[in-house]
């Protein structure tokens, strides 16, 4: 499974799923490279906006975050989700938004995938 994410949301340990090319078509990073800050800096320098990563990295993410991180994500979401869910659908909406913050904005306690 491949997921396209913004370069700003890249984290150490994520794996490149599809080669990243610059505007001239030259490959900057090949498939399967495990990202670290050095690689992320290269992508930003080249003005790359989106990168395909292996989504497997995130698939088990519910288990990869501890209580403290979940609380941090809830705090972040509280600033955006400012109303009280009234039914199960609205609670689901809250949950997927929370999960999304965990997956894209916080560093998991251990890598997966």
């Amino acid at each position: 499974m491949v997921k396209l994410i913004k370069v700003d949301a890249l984290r150490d340990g994520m794996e490149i799923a599809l080669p990243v090319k610059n505007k001239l078509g030259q490959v900057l990073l090949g498939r399967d490279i495990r990202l670290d800050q050095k690689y992320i800096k290269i992508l930003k320098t080249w003005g790359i906006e989106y990168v395909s990563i292996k989504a497997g990295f995130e698939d088990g993410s519910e288990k990869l975050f501890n209580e403290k991180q979940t609380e941090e994500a809830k705090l972040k979401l509280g600033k955006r989700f400012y109303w009280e869910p009234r039914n199960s659908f609205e609670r689901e909406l809250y949950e997927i938004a929370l999960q999304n913050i965990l997956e894209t904005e916080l560093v998991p306690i251990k890598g997966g995938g």
Partner: protein
Amino acid sequence: MDVLKLINTGVNNLPTLPTVFSKLSEAIDDPNTNTEKIAKIISSDQSSAFKILKVANSPFFGFRGRIDTVSQAIFHLGFNEVRNIIFALSIINFFSKDKILAKFRPIDFWAHSIGVGIATRLLGSVCGVTDLEPYFLAGIFHDIGKLLFFEFAQHDYLKVLDLAEERKILIKDAEIEVLGIDHADAGKMLAERWKMPQNIQDTIRFHHAGIIDKETNILVASVHLGDILARALSLGFPGDNLIPQVNEKIWDTLKLPEGFIKLIKKDLQNDFGQMLRIMLMD
């Protein structure tokens, strides 16, 4: 000149839509039309033909890698869906992508719009809607009014973005406060000028409420919820990062199965990634 006049003048001076789209619309409206005729028009514009094949082969439309010709794409997607996709691509290319206002970039705007298009179509299909053709397009165009502010009222729109950020309010509320008009009403002006279908005009105008003057409507309700889903999953950026409250009435309109929202999260994210590449990057 006030913003309403600026937008009005700007809309009236906008050129007509690209030739391939106009020719296509004429041909589709012709009762004697056929697939061959339509395919020929699309194929006359290589970029449109290339994108139509990519879109048709995306998992989002359910024909993974089996469509090799424009005629096959028309056969599987239907005349109107093909026209809608070309319409969406024409509009994406029509407006400049270089006018970056503060943190708000046109590419983020389009990414959000595509996210809403995907979510809207998915909602329509789960609700058992048989004519899904306008769903993707309605989602993509729901915020089109913002582009008019980008285009004709940049200076004032910067104030809108600052206000939304500073006070943590929805961009539509900041627009009303600064400009006296929100993107739903501005978008309606453009939709009328370009003679978009009535159902698309309605979704542009009523997507914040989710209903049309107290009347329920599945398409408008789907765009309303699609917008909120795209915000919840941070698919693109609509100008503020808030997740507004859903109009409670739409739950009765859509009658979604329990657990559905959690279930579609991964699909939405995957389809979004693929469509983004096809429509904005490839």
